[in-house]
């Protein structure tokens, strides 16, 4: 699975644990994200994955403040490594 999709799903799941299904609803509002079936984690990203991730984090932050960005950062820690960290938006570090 594409690393951007893996990270996006991880972030949405972590947000879902806090705010419930709204996490998926908000993700559908982010341009570039196509969510077909939240129950099956059926997510695709069209266009620039890095930009789409940044917008996703900002979408949550706009609604729920700085704390939501920390949640996103914490969520993706286990997925980031030396080889892929260049492609991750700086907002997540």
């Amino acid at each position: 699975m594409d690393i951007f999709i893996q990270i996006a799903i991880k972030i949405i799941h972590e947000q879902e644990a806090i705010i419930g299904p709204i996490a998926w609803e908000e993700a559908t509002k982010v341009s570039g994200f196509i969510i077909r079936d939240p129950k099956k984690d059926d997510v695709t990203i069209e266009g620039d994955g890095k930009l789409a991730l940044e917008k996703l984090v900002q979408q949550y932050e706009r609604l729920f403040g700085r704390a939501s960005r920390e949640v996103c950062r914490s969520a993706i820690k286990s997925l980031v490594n030396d080889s892929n960290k260049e492609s991750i938006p700086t907002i997540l570090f």
Partner: protein
Amino acid sequence: MFQVLENRTSQDGSERINQELYKKNAELAFRNKTLLLLRKLYVDTLITSHLKDLAARLVDSIQHELNPAMIGIFLLSKDKKLLVPLECKFSGLLDVNQAVGEFDPCVNPIVITNENSVQQKVLTQGQMLVVDNLGALWSNPLRKQHLAILQQKFRIISTVLYPLNIDKKAIGVFLFSLDRPYGDLSSYETEALESFSSLIAIAIDKARVYEQVEITNKQLEINNQRLKQLDSAKSEFLSIASHQLRTPLTGIKGYLSMILEGDYGAITPKVKPIIEEVFQNTDRLTRLVNIFLNVSRIESGRFEIDRKDVDFVELTEEVVRTLKLVAEQKKLELIFHHPDKLLPMLKLDKDKIKDVLLNLVDNAIKYTSKGKIEIFLEKFGEALKVIVKDTGIGIPKGEVRELFKKFVRGSGIAQINTGGSGLGLFIVKKIIEAHNGKVWAESAGKDMGSSFIFTLPMS
């Protein structure tokens, strides 16, 4: 314009509420995650009790859920000078081998340098401690720079050490590195870390006790095996030695008997008591050898029962005839109470059962200084019950059950009969049990007389 301001204020208010609600929900979500993790850790402690495996499971579970840059369980060495890594890991953020390089803190013990060292404070004060740099823990000056680079690579901002306390004594530490200052942690996050360290301490202590028990059990098993081999060698030796002794003894006894009978001519009155004494001692020696032979047969499983029809009344009369004189010499009455009803013939190994009755009556005579010895035969359901009752020294209450064990002699008996082997009643029990019977002793206590009772199935 007022309407616009009002809308903006209202929007700001709901944003703040949203954000506060989010924070509360985030806290609840974290607490929920902590509870689930604690449950998982608890399950880990149930799944494995092997110390190293358990530590690996606990560290893996916490790392999987919280992904700290570095996490470790270090145990205090016996000399209390080192904290030895039991399990320690860096996060998968980097290629660990490449990133860690020449000095891996996860495999190097933490040396407890002096009384004022940070490590010592955690252990003695039993409180958690936060360090900003790993160099404060692995205090080798040559490694400080390496550790600083390592810390930067893994983005470690602070490292928390929790003592693993059992009964207020530290058995080690739980190390957890953070990517932010410890002060930035919320109260629920610090509570979670404390809970993990408490659970780890209990789990590790339990696993250590379990491992110790396992080691002791293995040692006991080995010792037991050795004892069995020694016992078997002893029995073998006893059997061979007894056989070798019995043959010449039979010859000696025979010749002594012939001398006493006058087959080699008259012996002087001065020599006669000496020959009689030698004969009696040889007889005693023969009986002892026979006892040892019986014991070695019992223990090697070569103790065979040859059953034939036996008239038990007749057998008892033979025993009474044999020992009547001995009892009379001690001015004791030896009374056989014949049964009221006719007893059926019993399928028994006559010689061995006769040995049993001889042994019990002989003991009764030995340990009775005045009064009488009575023998009763009774029907006891489908069994024959034989009672040998005396008015002798009795048996202290605590000793009744022990008497039938090998080499056990009642207290006070040694003074009366110095030559006993402590094997007579052991053999009695084995013979009776080989006939599917039971044997036991009863006594009201010291100087109150005693009864030795055995049963034999009549069918």
